[in-house]
């Protein structure tokens, strides 16, 4: 089919959504937060993984929302769901028991062992910048078989050591994650950043570059990492979206809320000004 050809025209958010989608296998249970990973999971479900099922920490499982949720408490996530309960149902009965295959997490900082900081830059008690905090990220990262880290890639965000570890990755590498008491067979599987896709060495658990996004180079990625980043021997460009994927992604976000945020922001600002708001 022609729409299985690679798209020529795509944006960085679209590439990242595709990369998220490719991490999900058919039939998997995916615990999802807000933003690009949700679009990635919706894309996976509409393409190669029709039987993946999404759980939301709010209490819903395998929802069939008519529209793209803007949040994990979107009111369209309950009607037609297979299960609707509360946070402790999803966190305990599903996640803590080990029944979640994939959990998406994000953060403001990541270190070379996949530890994540979504709490603060600087000292916790006098932070330079305060971020929202863990939310469910800590718990997803603790218990999901594979956690997938989605990041804005700036040099100050890819650090040797996080200022604060909100969500544990492989801690100090090797087996330290499991020695600390986190369940065997869990941990970060990949980092999908705005510059590339990274994985972790099976032994040392150190992050390495697997693919760099189209238009970038290995060096330009390495320059934006605060440690001596290792690179896969079979390093290559990140696989671009197919035409079908792009069509579906754009269908999911007709207003450009996720995909064209700058433009979108301008529109709302203008409306607010017209209302006498600003």
């Amino acid at each position, binding site marked *: 089919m022609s729409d299985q050809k690679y798209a020529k025209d795509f944006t960085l958010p679209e590439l990242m959504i595709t990369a998220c989608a490719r991490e999900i296998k058919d039939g998997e249970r995916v615990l999802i937060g807000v933003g690009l990973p949700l679009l990635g999971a919706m894309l996976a479900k509409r393409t190669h993984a029709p039987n993946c099922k999404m759980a939301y920490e*709010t209490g819903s499982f395998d929802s069939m929302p008519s529209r793209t949720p803007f949040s994990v408490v979107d009111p369209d996530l309950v009607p037609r769901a297979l299960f609707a309960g509360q946070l402790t149902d999803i966190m305990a009965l599903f996640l803590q028991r080990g029944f979640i295959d994939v959990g998406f997490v994000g953060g403001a900082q990541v270190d070379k062992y996949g530890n994540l900081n979504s709490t603060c830059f600087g000292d916790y008690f006098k932070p330079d910048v305060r971020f*929202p905090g863990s939310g469910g990220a800590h718990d997803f990262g603790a218990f999901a078989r594979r956690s997938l880290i989605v990041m804005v890639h700036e040099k100050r965000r890819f650090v040797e050591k996080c200022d604060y570890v909100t969500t544990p990755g492989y801690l100090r590498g090797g087996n330290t994650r499991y020695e600390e008491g986190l369940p065997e067979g869990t941990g970060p599987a990949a980092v999908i950043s705005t510059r590339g896709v990274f994985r972790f060495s099976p032994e040392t658990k150190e992050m390495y570059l697997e693919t760099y996004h189209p238009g970038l180079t290995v060096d330009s990625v390495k320059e934006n990492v605060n440690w001596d980043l290792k690179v896969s021997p079979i390093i290559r460009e990140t696989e671009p979206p197919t035409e079908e994927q792009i069509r579906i992604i754009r269908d999911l976000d007709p207003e450009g809320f996720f995909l064209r945020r700058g433009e979108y922001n301008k529109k709302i600002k203008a409306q607010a000004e017209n209302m006498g708001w600003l």
Partner: protein
Amino acid sequence: MAEESKLMTMKEAISKFVSDGMTLYISAVWANHAAAAAHEIIRQGKKDLTLIESSPGEIFDQMIGAGCAKRLILSWSANEAFGTGYRFRRAVEKGLVEVEDYSNFGLTTKLMAGAMGVPFMPIMSQKGSSINEIRSFLGENKLKHVDCPFTGQKVTLISGINPDVSIIHCQRADLEGNLQTWGSIFSAKWGTLSGKTIIASVEEIVDTDTIRRNPESTLVPGFRVAAVVHEPWGAHPGHLFGYHDDDRWFRYMYANFVADDDVKFKKFLDEWVYGVDDRAGYIANYIKKYGYKRLMRLKPKPYYSDPINYGTYPFDTMHMDI
């Protein structure tokens, strides 16, 4: 003699039950978002509050910005895909509020322990993180690391909490305070029931027979509830299952263009909080400004569950004869 009515205005409820310095759970995730109560707390100028909720949105941001909060116990504070929580962020950066951080699961089990009447709950989460290492104002009472006496596994004990007052917005209640809600409720069951005193605002006051037709929808039995406030649209701009959608435009506008600007934030409070007497006034202002049609557009297309057949057995069906 039936039970006394607990119906009162939000002004009465907050003034009667909430005092400066108290610890409050306020349901502030976007479903069951107790916005009407939070605005009344701001109007009454409550101070030095310790606020607790797992992942609060806009109303925590506003209470922080209005100077009501001294301490926060939470897991996350922002506005989801709509934008960050700037009043929260700035207040923490400036040292105006102290924060005790948990994960969503950790925070919710803290409320669950309080609701269930035990002094702690064990979780297998929070290991290997700064959440477990760094303690703010709760100090040693934040949590403990123990080795399970049965299995030897490392376990985190999360200390329980019983807020002085818990506040929620629900779909309906009767005059005795039997509260019903449905949809996915995040941490609100444990948060509400953990409270020593419970205040609820509701979309509708119904008769007790209506409550009794759906006994599994009762979140809190009336004897736990101190005040019932009839405040339709009390969750706006959050949503409420069956009643209305999130007001996404309003949330986006607040998060992105208001919260991080001192002047605009003050103007926002002046208009939507200080400038009105109650939720009815807030909604009147909304209608004046945006039109009734815009408000009504937030109503859902009905989507009904099937009725559940519990079955009943009249007095003569003892079935003790063959």
